[in-house]
Every structure is written in C-alpha cells, then in structure tokens.
C-alpha cells in the first residue's frame, strides 16, 4: 500500500520563520532605529554639530583674543581705536560721520 506523503511542515515552517526573520533583520538593518539610513542621518547631524562647535570655538578664541588685547595689562591701541569706533561710535574731533 502506498504511504500518503505528509507535507514536510517542519522544514517549511523553519524556512518560513527563517525568511521572515531574515527579512525583518534586513529591514531593521536598513530602516530600523540603528539601521544604515538612521546612521547616515546621525552622521550628518554629527557633522553639522561638529561644524557648529568649531565655529563657536573660533569665535570664542577671537573674543578671548580681543579681551586680552583690551585689558589693562595688554591694551593693544590699534584694536582699542577700532573698537572705540565700531562699538562706541567714537570719532575724532576733526572727523565727520556720514550715515
């Protein structure tokens, strides 16, 4: 008597679960919170913040430079003259300001 063939449920299930997991992990690897796309976004954000940091650091060092050069014990007269004009609007008695 011929045995009726029982469909190989086990392997099919394993294959299905494997494929599902593989697809899930593939999808997560690309779209997930820790995926490639999100990593690229984080990297771009990090680059932007790095640029912002170096800009801020540059302006801090410029301000520190100006502070030093306008202090009592250093007092750079050229810078003082420039700042007196730019910030305080000072001009010399024989000058005329044209707005």
């Amino acid at each position: 008597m011929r045995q009726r063939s029982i469909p190989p449920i086990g392997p099919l299930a394993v294959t299905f679960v494997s494929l599902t997991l593989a697809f899930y992990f593939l999808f997560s690897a690309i779209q997930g919170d820790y995926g490639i796309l999100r990593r690229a976004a984080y990297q771009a954000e990090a680059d932007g913040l790095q640029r912002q940091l170096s800009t801020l650091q540059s302006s801090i060092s410029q301000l520190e430079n100006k502070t030093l050069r306008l202090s009592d014990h250093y007092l750079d007269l050229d810078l003082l003259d420039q700042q007196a004009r730019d910030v305080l609007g000072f001009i010399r008695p024989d000058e005329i300001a044209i707005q």
Partner: protein
Amino acid sequence: MSYQDQRDLIHASQGFVAALDQSGGSTAKALAAYGVDSEAFSSDAEMFDMIHAMRSRIVQSPDFTGAKVLGAILFEDTMDREFGGQPAPQYLWQQRGVVPFLKVDKGLQDTAEDVQLLKPMPDLDALLRRAAALGVFGTKMRSVIHGANPTGITKIVAQQFEIGAQIIAQGLIPILEPEISITISNKAEAENLLRDTILTHLDALPADQTVMLKVTLPETANLYSRLSQHQRVLSVVALSGGYSRAEANARLSQNSKMIASFSRALTEGLSAQQSDAEFDQTLAQTIDEIYRASIVG
C-alpha cells in the same frame, strides 16, 4: 640729523617701534591705571591734558631715546601737541632721536571675503601735508585678515599699496599693516598668500619708492625674510596681535631682521605718584625688555 639718518636708523633695525599713545576711548581708564582718578579732572580737555602730561613724562625720560626706541607711533591728537615747547614729532626726533610716525587710518569696514578693508580717508592728503610740515617721517594704517581667502587678501594688499602710493607722493614712508588675526585656523596658509601677494606689489613699485611693512608674527620662522631683504622695503615690523609677551618674544627671536612694534602703550607699571627716579627706572626696565626681545632675531 637728517631724513637720511632716519631712514638709516629704521633700516638698521636695532630697536623697536613703540606706541606712545592712548586712544580717546580709554583715556580715563588709562589715567586711572596711571594713578590719576576721575576727580582730578572736570572736563575732557583737562583729561586729555593730563594724559598728555603722562606722555611728556615718558618721552622726556632718560631711556626714551633712539638708542633703543627706533620709532614712536602717534595719534593725530599728539602730533598736534607739544613736548618740551616743540611740536611733538620734531621734539621726538631732534631731542630724543626717535623717528615719529602717525597713525592715519580711520577705522575698518565690515568683514567681507574674510578681510576688513580700511574705511575711506577723504582728507588724507591734507593730514599728510600737515604731518610732513610737523616733521613726521612716516605713517601707519592697519587692516585685518580673518581667513586664507585669496580674493580678500588680494583686495586688502591692493588697498594698502594704493593708499601707500598716496602717502609716498606726500613725501612720507608708509607702514602697510595687513594684520592676520592670530585666532584663525588657517593662519599659515593666509601668511603664505599674504607674502606672495605683497611680493608681487613690491616688484611693481618704482625704483624711487620705499615702504615699511607691519605683519603678524608668522607661524613659519623667517617666512617674511624675502620681504625684509627686498629693495623696496625699508624695514619689516612685527606685531604680536595678542600673543603673550613671552610667546611674542620667542617668535620674534626666530625671525631675523624684524623689528618689534608693540601696540601696547609703554605705560605698564608707571604711575603719577612715582618719584622721577622710580618712574624713569620702571620705564627703563620696560624699554630694555622690549629692546632685547627685538634685537634677538
């Protein structure tokens, strides 16, 4: 002593160029640091008279001579005043052997292309004629570089040389001062661009014209040696631009044929209450310290 003596003294570069002045902006503060508080004067005019008295005391101090102080950069207010009964520039040269310079710039424009150009100076010729008549030898004008931007550096150097030609036409020697900010990240690159651009302009100068240059102490030692050796350059003056005195002296010693030019007033440690002996000794110390740093290079 003649005009040629002045040129020879500056060219020999054995000393430093001092800033003698106090800008209007901080005169009260400078007087306070000098020990004269605000009750001592009741008007601006009195305040400026007192600051001028301090300057007079400095220039008449025994050690304030051409032996160490090659030149002194004056603001217009001081040029119009007197020391020892003589116009200030003439007194400085004839009595002290110090070459007088005049700061002629009137402030800076806003930053564009990483540079700040000079503001227009419409009455420059009249000022120069007055200065020459009072015995001023040269002038100084400062503009600032904030980045290694070829277009900006080309413009800033062109403006300095263009106004420099105007100054030479009135018989004075211009100190061209394109300052490079010491806080920028690409300072070395900006310095290379500046040196090459200046060389181009120097080569184009007529044979009878001479300039002086004032530049920030460079990252590379002797970067500007080709400028100080150029036939059209009387002398190259170094500005510290914010480096501490120790670092400025260290950098200066690595650069030969560069005169120190401190925009810092010589008033550090001086006070109205000091006796003449104490005053002269303190000033002598300051002058000697800067002089030694200047001739080390």
